[in-house]
């Protein structure tokens, strides 16, 4: 019983508010969120007042707070989806859970409401198994285990630092895919959590994510910003970039990344065809960075997430900086972020 209590006080739920009226969102999540402390960060570009219902333990941060804490002489931009990183920065908790403000709780195959927070916490507080694939998925889950042929020496696993959840209804597709299949909705509830193997890259979606701030905090960075970045996920790649850095860093530090449950229900929003124009640049960019991320190796001397970010930034600048100014800027932001984290983020 006390174990659960300790964990509740170690959690911050960070919400980036891209919509001013959070009433419906907060009420839908109330059964899950009401026991936790929330950090709501308002998109600095949003002018309207935030509407948040009563009954929550929360702190709200707006543009003026961001300016005060971060200062004006910075290349880090917290607008749009990147506003939530400010929440990561000012949190003092061990674990962070973050969902987009256009998502509500999903229902599982039995019709029960999914407690996404509880599932993320379970993911983060049970080991990950990145060195060998378990064909029955998460071996620490009730009713499952390691299968025959799984080496015993690998069965204690490693600490899970990042938990990536999924989405029912509007899946996190890119604009071209959703535009080609406008009616396609994700209705398949896959009842599994699994560890993404070491050295395998994956697209990390910021829509439904949780991580150990203590172990990985500085590695989640609002570094890559598209020139035409917009207010729909189709029009961004900040989480994809951040996620690739985080995966490389986790692999280097021997930390695990899980994917799968929990699901959230993502509401209808936006027009994929219109977004196609804005995201095209991001699509091209991501093609260039994959070989870099697959081959980058961090020095053994990098033993903390901060160290790793600094090394990643160097590598980005050297190997990608020449091909597009966007990467050079990303490297700069990463360096600044670590400084900012040390100043503000470390308790």
């Amino acid at each position, binding site marked *: 019983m006390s174990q659960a209590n300790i964990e509740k006080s170690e959690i911050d739920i960070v919400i980036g508010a891209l919509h001013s009226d959070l009433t419906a969102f907060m009420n839908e999540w109330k059964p899950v969120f009401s026991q936790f402390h929330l950090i709501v960060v308002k998109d600095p570009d949003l002018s309207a007042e935030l509407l948040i219902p009563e009954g929550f333990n929360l702190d709200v941060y707006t543009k003026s707070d961001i300016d005060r804490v971060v200062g004006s002489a910075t290349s880090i931009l917290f607008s749009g989806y990147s506003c939530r990183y400010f929440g990561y920065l000012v949190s003092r908790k061990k674990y962070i859970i973050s969902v987009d403000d256009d998502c509500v709780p999903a229902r599982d*195959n039995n019709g029960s409401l999914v407690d996404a927070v509880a599932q993320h916490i379970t993911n983060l507080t049970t080991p990950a198994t990145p060195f*060998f*694939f*378990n*064909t*029955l*998925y998460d071996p620490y*889950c009730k*009713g*499952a*285990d*390691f*299968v*025959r*042929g*799984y*080496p*015993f*020496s*690998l069965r204690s696993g490693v600490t899970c630092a990042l938990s*990536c959840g*999924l989405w029912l209804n509007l*899946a*996190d*597709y*890119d604009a071209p*895919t959703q535009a080609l*299949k406008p009616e*396609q909705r*994700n*209705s*398949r*509830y*896959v*009842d*599994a959590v699994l560890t*993404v*193997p*070491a*050295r*395998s*890259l*994956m*697209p*990390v*979606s910021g829509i439904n994510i949780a991580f150990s701030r203590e172990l990985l905090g500085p590695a989640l960075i609002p570094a890559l910003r598209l020139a035409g970045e917009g207010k729909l*996920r*189709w029009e961004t*790649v900040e*989480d*994809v970039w951040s*996620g690739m850095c985080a995966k490389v860093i986790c692999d280097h530090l021997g930390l695990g990344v899980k*994917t799968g449950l929990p699901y959230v229900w993502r509401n209808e929003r936006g027009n994929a065809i219109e977004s196609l124009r804005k995201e095209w640049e991001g*699509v091209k960019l*991501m*093609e260039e960075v*994959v070989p870099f991320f697959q081959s980058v190796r961090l020095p053994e001397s990098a033993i903390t997430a901060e160290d790793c970010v600094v090394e990643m930034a160097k590598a980005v600048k050297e190997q990608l900086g020449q091909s597009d100014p966007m990467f050079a800027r990303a490297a700069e932001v990463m360096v600044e972020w670590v400084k900012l984290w040390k100043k503000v983020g470390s308790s």
Partner: protein
Amino acid sequence: MAHPVTPVSPPLKDELDIVIPTIRNLDFLEMWRPFFQHYHLIIVQDGDPTKTIRVPDGFDYELFNRNDVNRVLGPKASCISFKDSACRCFGFLVSKKKYIFTIDDDCFVAKDPSGKEINALAQHIQNLLTPSTPFFFNTLYDPYREGADFVRGYPFSMREGAPTAISHGLWLNIPDYDAPTQLVKPLERNSRYVDAVMTIPKGTLFPMCGMNLGFNRELIGPAMYFGLMGDGQPIGRYDDMWAGWCAKVICDHLNLGVKTGLPYIWHSKASNPFVNLKKEYKGIYWQEEIIPFFQSIVLPKECTTVQNCYIELSKKVKEKLGSIDPYFQKLGDAMVTWIEAWEELNPPAQAAQSTGVKKEEPSTKAK
């Protein structure tokens, strides 16, 4: 028992063999009849060759017992295990088809959460006929499945995927646990239906279970050797594991894909954990050295065929694992014998002509 309407043309009817090792009986085939009826079966009878194993009526099959194995392979028969389901790979050797589905005789038709019976064979075929995605993990699992796709951030240059060489299915009811786990959790049953197929990323090893397995024989056949197990051998229940590690390393080298997940079968028989422990005992220790060995193998660029890769692997096995136990010298030699047998029974000219003689009548023995 209800018989579903026969499909107009079962997929890959003339291109797929179903290989079944058995030492008991083939009663389980009755339940699979609606799904297997139109396919050719290769039965590999293990154990006493004088025992008659009855095949249910109406199936088109060949049956090989130990005498047949010896007759077909002569001295090379030494590479085929006796008194172990590893003998199933003899069926892979003699098949003339492009695809293989292999299943154990204690595996039955499972039901999905809606109560519908699962056509495991059809799912394996679907898995094998669609690409894999080994180079980048897709968080919505198999993007080629109905209702799924590549997620945002998945590189477009990788969306054609790689050809799928292996389709690894799972099991409801009795899970495939090792002996120590069975001893600790004798009552655990797998009741979780995970509605996903996914590609195991390049560079990652996995425990391949031979109970419910499909593969493209043309792409990976020669690597699907199930080793020396059972009678006269110091180890058992590592046959499929061994094949899986070898095959995955080669798939990774040749940029072929391995899928795991659906389909589920219903695994009915829990083998005796004490018997299993005796068989697995050495394997549990040896695998601690075997795994790092496979994880660190780099096959030379010049190895561009499965056979070449496999021969190269056999050399490394003898060189690096030989010091663990003389068994690995024998195993390395057996791997070479296997490839020699494969080349003999599957000469390139014949492979190009593909399908062999198709039998319409049930037969009791291969001629």
